[in-house]
């Protein structure tokens, strides 16, 4: 049996310390803040990041350099036969595309398998956990990639923003931002579904936004991922949550989600910074991912 290394980037919300415990590797995402480069979870904490973001610093994200990607692969291939790399969604960043290109280099061909399953944050973390399990079950790297990619549409994320300010400032998610009114203060709810990050709904208040997200989750569970259980049994899906900056608000919302879907474990992480820098602090996100059989 070949020895498989699992690798992801810091968008998965997996910290370097957790990675060590899980026996996987995490590639930190680089940030440019006021001209200086930082690495997520390595040379920049979330607290520092939000401090700078709210102070109006000029923040931009970039892909991990090809050098850093290939260096990590080379290192892993020293004591593994194959690498399964699960980067952030190709719909949100070019990192995946670059990694796929690099994996076609002669040096890595057949050895590095880049998974293009459009996950981010908590759902990306779940993919990593699934990959670990699949590899333990004896699947080959290529099989793991195939299983994860086949499953790519079985997940959706809803994010409620506290403000449209950062979305507009970034100018990055224009079609979504353009559809949202800008005169009134709105709490837009975005959806990440497959490739697209798009406006899903609008709300005027946080409570309205939360209720929209809960309803959307319920719909997904019912209509897409196999139904709600009758008697508070564990669902056939993973419930996940993420937030930017405000842990207290996130915990309060977690209680509401738990009350709506009792008997299920809810995994919650801070949202990765490459998403956070576009949506700003105070955002709440929920995700539903069908359990991989």
């Amino acid at each position, binding site marked *: 049996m070949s020895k498989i290394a699992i690798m992801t980037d810091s968008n998965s919300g997996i910290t370097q310390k957790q990675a060590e415990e899980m026996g996987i590797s995490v590639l930190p995402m680089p940030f440019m803040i006021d001209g200086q480069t930082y690495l997520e979870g390595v040379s920049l904490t979330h607290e520092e990041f939000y401090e700078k973001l709210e102070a109006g610093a000029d923040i931009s994200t970039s892909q991990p350099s090809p050098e850093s990607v290939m260096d990590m692969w080379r290192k892993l291939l020293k004591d593994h036969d194959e690498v399964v790399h699960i980067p952030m969604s190709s719909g949100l960043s070019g990192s995946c595309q670059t990694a796929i290109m690099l994996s076609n280099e002669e040096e890595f061909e057949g050895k590095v398998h880049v998974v293009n399953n459009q996950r981010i944050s908590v759902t990306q973390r779940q993919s990593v956990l699934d990959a670990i399990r699949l590899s333990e079950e004896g699947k080959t790297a290529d099989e793991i990639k195939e299983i994860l990619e086949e499953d790519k549409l079985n997940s959706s994320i809803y994010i409620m923003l506290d403000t449209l300010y950062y979305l507009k400032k970034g100018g990055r998610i224009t079609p979504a931002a353009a*559809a949202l009114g800008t*005169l009134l*203060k709105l709490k837009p709810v975005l959806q990440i579904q497959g490739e697209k990050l798009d*406006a899903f*709904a609008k709300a*005027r208040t*946080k409570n309205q936004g939360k209720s929209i997200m809960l309803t959307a989750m319920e719909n997904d569970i019912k209509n897409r991922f196999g139904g709600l259980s009758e008697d508070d049994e564990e669902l056939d899906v993973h419930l996940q949550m993420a937030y930017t900056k405000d842990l207290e608000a996130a915990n309060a919302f977690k209680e509401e989600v738990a009350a709506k879907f009792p008997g299920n474990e809810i995994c919650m992480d801070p949202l990765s910074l490459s998403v956070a820098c576009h949506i700003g602090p105070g955002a709440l996100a929920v995700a539903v991912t069908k359990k991989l059989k």
Partner: protein
Amino acid sequence: MAVNTIDAKMLSKMFLAGAKNLEVKKEYINELNVFPVPDGDTGTNMTLTIMSAAREVAALGDEPELMQLAKAISSGSLRGARGNSGVILSQLFRGFCKVIGEQQEISVKILSKAVEKAVESAYKAVMKPKEGTILTVAKGISVKAAELSNTEDMDYFLETVITYGEEVLAKTPEMLPVLKQAGVVDSGGQGLIEVLKGALMAFRGQEIDLSFVAESTGKPVVADSQAVDTADIKYGYCTEFIIMLSKTFNIKHEMDFKAFLESIGDSIVVVADDDIVKVHVHTNDPGLAIQRALKYGALSNMKIDNMRLEHQEKLFKEAEKKENTIEETATQKDVGFISVSIGEGLNEILTDLGVDVIIEGGQTMNPSTEDILSAIEKVNAKTVFIFPNNKNIILAANQAQTLVDNKKIIVIPTKNIPQGITAIINYMPDLSDEENEQTMLSEISNVKTGQVTYAVRDTVIDEKTIHENDIMGIGDHGILAVGKEIAETTIEMVEEMIGDDEVELISIYYGQDVKEEDAKALSAQIGKLYSECDVELQFGGQPIYYYVISAE
């Protein structure tokens, strides 16, 4: 020998006389509005509705056929219908005309049948018919008419049913407590009685001055400019001004002045009011009109337009518009939105939220069914959502909906601007039209609203005594606060509106008559009172209402 039947010629006269009588009593009917708001305009709405039909009737000439006449009344009033009473009036006419259009001559029997049909149509048009309104008066008339359907004597029949209608009208305050408190009879019912009284006068041979129909044609509802060639414009300059009188201007002077204007042009309007005279004339030599007017005093608000140029421009624009329409057909979108709104700020907010066409209007100016139809035409979408944003416009919107068959029209019965804003915010492109309709309906019921304006007369409503010029805060279900100061009354209204409910966001839209700094001060004060809640201040720019406020 007594005339016991009505022919087309007579009916046409009677209809126009009814319209005329309503127009004369318009202001009086406006004042019968329960809420003493500055925009009680049942009389205006009903008059505009009937005028739209009167124009079509007048255009038929002196010898119309009953069928043509019925069609003119029916379609004219339907398209011109505005305001709840206007829509109901148009439905009364519609039902009435269905019966008479099939006849050669109208006997008492047929007339009573037509009245019955009229009432039936009107009741159908209203989802929740309320007694103590124009509907009750109409029903009373139809009951009496049925009783008398075996009489031959038309004059006796008409007089008796109308008198009975007046008796029912006098009882409306007993059926609707709001009327009783305000000490008025139902304004729509009063309007209907005025129409019938006018008709009776014409039946009895009284000649009516029909110039009012021509005057009101000054603003045609849907004139197709191409029908008039530029060369057909006889008098080229539209000339308007006000004379500020420094000399006497009695009825004789007025007649002289009018006669002079008639010698140099047409479309003449001369309205004298204490110390000013408003003048409007189409002429080829505006100088003559002005020189003559200077004899009576100094002039102000002068406006002279070259109508031939304007007309050409209009033709160009229409041609352009047609081209655009053709282009647009290719890219019809799935869903479009129409909202009734007034005020620069509110219009901007709604447009920003995705409204395609704003129909200017609201309390003060209820758009007609025709206005709504033309807005629908402008939205190139398969499904069009309409937000009437006023309870007096919902019926006209529903009526427009029944007249459109090439698009799916969904009327969301929003009663004010905040509800309209909530409705469009809750639209989700991923959902079906029906799901969106359901969401919007349930969300608009979660918004509490209040609007602040002033009283135009003394009255008592909701056990609150109100004096002319008092400030009133009107909520979703009645008057919430009355006072002398705008800010104070507004705050009292907000407190009443919210009560003990949990509220997350208070939105304040301030009107055109409010200074920004005053609005900011009020917003800060409300923010202090509700510290746990977000307060958002926006410029609405609406007339008449100092503040429109919502809490959710």
